[in-house]
């Protein structure tokens, strides 16, 4: 665990802000995408890709790299923005997202895009796949860690809990899940559609170590990731409380922005608000 100084926090906050701007630009240009869940995950992705993950963008198959699985694949915009900024592919590619000959698919595709660890889209796969990958790391004596970013609506799927069982059975402490808990899904509020509470208790009952944080607070994200790396005998889930559509006033906490595209005037407003930046420590 290393100390995260204030200037580094400011840098990562700035990266998160840029990832939000880039995500909205991409979604607006393409005319489709999922802004709400991309915006809620911006700090989490920023800390992972620009601080925690041990990666080599020039050698995306480097065998000792940390593995990141975006299980909530619809947040692809913020992942693509981070990966291009990190150098996995040219930023120019982002402007071609969704075009027929562009490697960037609607949801991440491990075959087409360098650095994508696993294809995703149908919700629920990441945890069981990540558990298998973490097991492979242990068996091969590799020190790399496996990270899985889950959505909150996603964990309504039974397969997630099957994966949770397996990870706990094999004591996969080299596996860290992060839950982007923004409490909004496609059809409305998660707590209305299919409540998750008592959420932390559920994960504890599945023999996971649980850390709850503010998912927009860079220091809390980083410290939780560090702590997860020191847990013995258990996988860890970081329940990151977030705001869907974070940073754009009219999108925040509004299910209509799960998969909608801003109109031109809304787009201009979004850019103004994101460029101004917000207080991510709320």
């Amino acid at each position, binding site marked *: 665990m290393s100390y995260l100084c204030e200037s580094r926090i400011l840098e990562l906050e700035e990266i998160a802000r840029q990832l939000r701007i880039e995500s909205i630009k991409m979604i607006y240009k393409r005319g489709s995408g999922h802004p709400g869940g991309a915006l809620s995950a911006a700090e989490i992705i920023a800390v992972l890709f620009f601080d925690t993950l041990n990666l080599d963008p020039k050698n995306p198959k480097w*065998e000792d790299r940390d*593995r990141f699985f975006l299980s909530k694949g619809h947040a692809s915009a913020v992942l693509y923005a981070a990966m291009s900024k990190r150098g996995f592919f040219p930023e120019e590619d982002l402007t071609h997202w969704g075009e027929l000959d562009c490697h960037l698919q609607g949801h991440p*595709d*491990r*075959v087409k895009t360098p650095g994508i*660890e*696993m*294809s*995703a*889209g*149908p919700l629920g*796969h990441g945890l*069981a*796949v*990540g*558990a*298998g*990958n*973490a*097991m*492979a*790391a242990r*068996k*091969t004596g*590799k020190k790399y860690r496996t990270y899985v970013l889950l959505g909150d609506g996603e964990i309504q799927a039974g*397969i997630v809990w*099957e*994966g949770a*069982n*397996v990870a706990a*059975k*094999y004591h996969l402490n080299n596996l860290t899940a992060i839950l982007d808990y923004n409490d909004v899904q496609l059809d409305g509020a998660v707590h209305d559609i299919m409540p998750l509470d008592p959420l932390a208790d559920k994960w504890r009952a599945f023999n996971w170590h649980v850390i709850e944080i503010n998912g927009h607070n860079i220091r809390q994200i980083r410290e939780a990731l560090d702590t997860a790396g020191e847990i013995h005998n258990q996988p860890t889930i970081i329940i990151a409380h977030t705001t869907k559509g974070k940073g754009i006033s009219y999108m925040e906490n509004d299910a209509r922005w799960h998969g909608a595209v801003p109109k031109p005037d809304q787009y201009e407003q979004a850019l103004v608000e994101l460029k101004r930046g917000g207080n991510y420590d709320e």
Partner: protein
Amino acid sequence: MMSDIPQREAYGHALAAYGEVNPKVVVLDADTSSSTLTHFFGSKFPDRFYNVGIAEPCMVDFGVGLSLGGFVPFVNAFAAFLSLRAVEQVRTCVAYAETNVKLVGHYAGVSDYKDGPTHNCVVDLAVMRSLPNMTVIVPADNHQIVQWIPVIAEYEGPVYFRMSRDKSLLVHPVDVKPVIGKAVTLREGSDVALIANGAMLGRTLLAADRLAQMGIQSRVVEVHTLKPLDVDAICEAAALTGAIVTAEEHTIIGGLGSAVAEAIAEHYPVPLQRVGIMDRFPVTAKDAELLMDYMGLSVDDIVKAATEVIQRK
């Protein structure tokens, strides 16, 4: 003796033996290892064996993760549950993602006669064949099962391998190495072509003997790989005989009969008759062989189809 043991037993022993040769092989099961007989592997290599409980979708995804980490997972479950309950995992994380996962569907066809229609599986091949990137293999006998295991393990990519719970007639010598996508002609004849795979291949050879006694010479072709399909061998059989019968332990919709029909309709149309399960669910029975007969898969059914299709030439 290979002729005395069921396919699953030949598979279980062969997989355990191959585990010594290939340290990358890991084996997964979903609380059926005493049925699929992967427990032979499991007791020999406990640290390379994962029993995930009754969670076939999770087993597929967990296997995918192991494959991403460099292992060659053999993922075992009853065909009915692997090809249906876990099909979205198979579609997304194996076929679409092009992961190096070997799916082994056990108790396929009607071989799980005593558990009944829910545990029989006569649709798995239709499901698996429709998935891009999937290689689909239906081995005929125990000798071939032993030979197939290294072939599919060393092939890079998704494979579906179909296992019967029951015995099947030995039709191949012990040491013939199969080639993915390459059909095998087992008998020459010019009156009719009989195309079969799996447990139906032995029955088809018996039917060919019976037909020979009637003065009808059959060309018998084993299409063990449903995908990629050996279209050339099928068209060659069509050209040499002018009439085809297919025989499969599967619904006639989407399996071998369909694949052959598609191939010859486009490339070499000749009369075709399909022996298979006629778009209905099987029933519970006291014996697998009897159930196959009951479901329209008897040697008589193949002989009858051959004599009928010849009339249509």
